[in-house]
């Protein structure tokens, strides 16, 4: 009897390891951002539909969202209503990063579907997206007033993700308002 003890122990260990692995498998499909807890990468880019420039340092002192999107991205269309809802809730400002897109296409997208963004920066050749570690639109970053990246969500936003992953990370007096 005693000789089965050790193999049984290893078998139980294997079962435990595989169980945890399978349970966590869905989360593993999403690659966590290397930027979490680090300063948001600096950039200065042209603003969509206006001659000015926008730099991420303009957002210092405020919580904000940075949403990476493009008119070529079908999932961006799926999350657009949620973005509009977030904009209406007036929780925090939203910066759009228009990624490898045509200005004209982006502008007609916003005029047709509604514009949830406070400002849209144009990253036509994808340089800034690389600095932010973007690998697939839509991606949404949450940045704190000190300019530190707090969280990144890959894929379309929905109400559940918004409440669980974003609102819960904001200071309470802000999320309740």
């Amino acid at each position: 009897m005693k000789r089965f003890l050790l193999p049984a122990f290893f078998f139980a260990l294997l079962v435990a390891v595989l169980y945890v692995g399978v349970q966590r498998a869905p989360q593993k499909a999403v690659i966590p951002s290397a930027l979490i807890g680090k300063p948001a990468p600096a950039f200065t880019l042209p603003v969509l539909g206006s001659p000015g420039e926008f730099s991420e340092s303009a957002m210092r002192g405020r919580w904000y969202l940075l949403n990476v999107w493009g008119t070529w991205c079908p999932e961006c269309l799926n999350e657009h209503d949620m973005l509009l809802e977030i904009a209406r809730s007036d929780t925090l400002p939203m910066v759009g990063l228009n990624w490898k897109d045509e200005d004209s296409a982006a502008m007609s997208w916003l005029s047709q579907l509604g514009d949830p963004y406070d400002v849209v920066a144009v990253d036509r050749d994808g340089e800034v997206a690389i600095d932010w570690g973007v690998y697939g639109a839509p991606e949404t970053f949450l940045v704190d007033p000190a300019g530190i990246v707090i969280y990144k969500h890959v894929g379309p936003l929905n109400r559940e993700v918004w409440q669980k992953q974003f609102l819960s990370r904001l200071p309470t007096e802000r999320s309740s308002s």
Partner: protein
Amino acid sequence: MRRFLPLLLSMCWISPTFAIDPIEMSNPALQERYRNLSHELRCMQCQNQSIADSPVGLAGDLRREVRQLLEEGKTDREIRQHMKDRYGDFILFRPEFSPRNAWLWITPILFLLIGLFVAIRIIRQRVTLAPTDGSNPDDSGHEGMRDR
């Protein structure tokens, strides 16, 4: 057979020399390093291809980034770090040792040691058991002779 000849001939075109991005760097040494680096970096969108093999837009952007960094005189190590800072360990096809993935590197060695330990114990057991196995060691010897 003749029907397939055009098809077979067209296949001659498929060759590794037709890289996705047949870019020439300013000198052959850089070209070689570019080739190596672009095969070592993962295309984050397709995940099982290197940026050298992938036709998607982001892979092209990352190849451009690698070329720029090479032209700026960055070392291979610096370029790998540059990519890791932005995309995490996952972008490297040959991940580096870090506290986070230490167990991945250590467990195979650990299991080898456990196996070695178990094997030595079993062998020792057999060696000490062998003489006490038969009541008379001479008997087994004779038996072996007879069998032959």
